[in-house]
């Protein structure tokens, strides 16, 4: 039975014996910590790398330069540049003629294949050009056209020559034609004029994010206009005016609950109430903004309350002491002092709203919208939903453009968050 108290000497030697193992354990824990952080950072970097490497090339695409004969009679038969006239015109035939003069296909089958080389947006390009600049009529001018996405993928090397023809998306003849165009120096790789200024399209080479971007801006504006005043008003009311009773407790619990509800559910609510019951149209930024506003409200309320609480009581006491009323104290003193915190919380809330997809899917901002919305009641989509829709398409070029769209989205998010951090640092007060 070892029931003697250990002498300090004995204790010392026992401790010294135990040190090595304990230090090893300590170092192991430090190592685990370092590994974990490194893993997390690696994931982050890999994610960014993966997106950027795919997306960088999404900002560029291949073009072919052709000499176009701007024959007014064929492009604008009625001569008045009206929509009907241009619609009846033969712009695409002119383009094909120019193309055929270079590659000279023979027979119907070859001509059919050749017609697919230039993007199907060729006639729109011509008609846009003549509308902006009618003096082009009667000239022969060089025009750059986007190449069809299969040709584009081939030029980038994703569709390989070596693959047997039956397994390839483009035929040997088409490759021959492309080679010929390349030899003449007519094919160029340039910054895409579609990705940022075009809108959604089924053809990857013509697809762009302009529509989605404007839709996002409109939706966010609605969200901000609704959630910012409501959020501040609620936060001020709960912090400064309301007495602490059962009702305010219920409201607080409610707000905390709402912050925890998955975003899909907000979409369902929007679908059931705004669309079914109120009968509002689907797919408009107004409804999207309302749903996002309700989602962002808890965030704004909670951060605003924290900002209001941070204002020291001495400021309020001083104002009351001069004889200001409660509302005057709030509006003249508390709110201005709490504004930096409230703004920061709002910007962060808006950044979250910008990236939301699921609730907007629920209210239908997913239809194939080609037109760019002009107002908050025109159908539109938002950037994350656009990304979601494009992600489904198999064409290689869509993968690149989707990644490019993600880059645009991330750039905005990073800017907004950086701005919020900057604002917080700049306007930070040390009481």
């Amino acid at each position, binding site marked *: 039975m070892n029931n003697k108290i250990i002498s300090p000497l004995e204790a010392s030697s026992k401790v010294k014996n135990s040190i090595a193992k*304990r230090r090893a*354990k*300590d170092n192991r*824990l430090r190592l*685990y*910590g370092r*590994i*974990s*952080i490194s893993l*997390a*950072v690696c*994931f*982050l970097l890999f*994610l960014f790398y*993966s*997106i950027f490497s795919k997306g960088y090339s999404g900002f560029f695409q291949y073009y072919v330069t052709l000499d176009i004969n701007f024959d007014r009679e064929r492009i604008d038969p009625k001569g008045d540049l009206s929509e009907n006239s241009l619609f009846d015109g033969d712009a695409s035939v002119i383009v094909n003629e120019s193309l055929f003069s270079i590659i000279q296909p023979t027979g119907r089958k070859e001509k059919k294949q050749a017609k697919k080389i230039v993007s199907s947006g060729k006639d729109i390009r011509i008609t846009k050009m003549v509308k902006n600049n009618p003096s082009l009529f009667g000239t022969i001018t060089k025009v750059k056209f986007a190449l069809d996405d299969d040709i584009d993928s081939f030029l980038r090397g994703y569709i390989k020559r070596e693959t047997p023809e039956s397994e390839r998306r483009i035929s040997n003849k088409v490759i021959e034609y492309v080679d010929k165009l390349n030899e003449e120096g007519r094919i160029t790789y340039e910054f895409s004029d579609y990705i940022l200024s075009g809108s959604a399209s089924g053809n990857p080479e013509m697809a762009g994010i302009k529509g989605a971007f404007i839709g996002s801006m409109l939706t966010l504006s609605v969200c901000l206009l609704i959630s910012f005043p*409501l959020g501040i*008003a*609620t936060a001020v*009311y709960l912090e400064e*005016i*309301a007495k602490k009773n059962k009702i305010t407790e*219920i*409201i607080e619990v*409610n707000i*905390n*609950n*709402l912050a*925890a509800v*998955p975003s*899909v*559910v*907000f979409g*369902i*609510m929007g679908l*059931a*109430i705004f669309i*079914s019951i109120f009968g509002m149209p689907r797919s408009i930024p107004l409804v999207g903004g309302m749903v996002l506003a*309700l989602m962002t*409200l808890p965030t704004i309320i909670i951060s605003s309350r924290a900002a209001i609480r941070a204002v020291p009581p001495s400021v309020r006491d001083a104002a009351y002491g001069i004889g200001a009323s409660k*509302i005057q104290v709030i509006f003249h003193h508390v709110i201005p002092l709490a504004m930096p915190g409230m703004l920061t919380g709002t910007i962060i809330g808006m950044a979250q709203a910008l*990236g939301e*997809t*699921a609730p907007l*899917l*629920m209210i*239908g901002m*997913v239809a194939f919208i080609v037109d760019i919305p002009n107002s908050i009641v025109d159908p539109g989509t938002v950037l*994350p*939903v656009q*990304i*979601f829709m494009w*992600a489904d398409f198999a064409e290689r070029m869509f*993968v690149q453009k*989707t990644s490019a769209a*993600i880059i645009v*989205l*991330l750039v905005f*998010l990073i800017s907004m*968050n950086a701005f919020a951090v900057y604002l917080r640092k700049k306007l930070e007060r040390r009481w």
Partner: protein
Amino acid sequence: MFNFYLLAGILLISFIFFFFGYIRARSLVISNQKNLHSLVHYYGIFSLLACLLPTLGVFFILTVGDDFLFAELIKEFIPDHVINSENYNFTIILAQINNSVDGLIFGTPPQWIKNASEIWKSWVHKSQILTVIVCFLTAIISGFLSYKKINREFRSRNAVEKIIISIMALSSVIAILTTIAIIFSVFFEAMRFFALIPFDEFLFGTVWNPQFEGAERAGSGQEGLSQYGAIPLFAGTFLISLIALCVSVPVGLFSAIYLSEYASSKERAFFKPLLEVLAGIPTVVYGFFAALTVAPFLRSSGSIFGLDIASESALAAGFVMGIMIIPFISSLSDDVINAVPQSLRDAGYGLGSTKNETVMKIVLPAALPGVVASVILAVSRAVGETMIVVMAAGLAANLTANPLEAVTTVTSQIVTILVGDQEFESAKTLSAFALALTLIIITLGMNFYALHVVKKYREQYE
């Protein structure tokens, strides 16, 4: 456009009353020796608000309400043979009439629709005139009444402040209204679902195979082909969340321990925000990453080892979701660990503990409730997550524990069912609401529990 102009007009009248009130107050000041109770501009504001608010209320009621009224009245103009037909669906008829009113005509609609839309248009016209008159009258009358109130004794600042407080109180109620709206929209539809499919079949059934009623009737298979057993969905959600936790808890927890106990302040200032970035990335980006990078990578590396990993495996979705959740665990745990008082650490070091011993045997056990709460919150987030699973996990309701197979989740099904064509009455559409109800109950339940845990833990230290 019409509404816009009307609103502009209302605002204009309100501002006119602002001036009336302001001028009257000024005249009172000039004509009397004694000062008024409030500053002069408050009287103007009072007039403005008194005119504007009731008018806005009337405007909204009339503008929103007339659509409901018309929908009821238009029923008179639907021919009997349409009402009695088998496929009668009022919502669709209403939509057709509205399209016709808006000028969107597809093909040649029947004559009665054209008639109905003409009648609707005339009603709209009449209602617009009515709205203008009523709003105008309300504005003038309420403005005038407020104007009469202005005299020497009137405490306009108090009145204005009371109005402002009421507006703020109303906005606070919006939070409650939203909750009610969510409950209302989800609960009632879910109940209609449970009227068709019994509770126990939903909660305990192991086959999930919803079909549209149209498909059933078209004879795509045997009768009663639809099955609504949600167990595979729960299992899928559970499996993916579990994988996510396996990634996020070790990484998040050890990161939090390192950053709060071992890291220098420079390291901490650099790495903590970096981890937060993971939380700021939109989930659609994670979904894209999972579907286009992680899943193919897993599939090809799996084939090297002779494993057949599905292209929409639970592993891919769960792994990426784990990455997304890391900051939830690391941030919250970091806060909790920092909240443990320094005196406990001092006691530990004073006895000769190594840092490892102090952290693992003293600090963590003290912080454990908070850490557990953060894990629960992270799980709740994982369960409610939608985009990653929609894009990277499958749609096949597969009941399995194998992470290499494709599974689907509750949220994924909700999205799939509700996006696209819907028939509001069918069991399939309603099943989405039942799923949403389950989702709400689970996530809210977890959040309540996490808060409860944190509350108990705080009592320990205060």
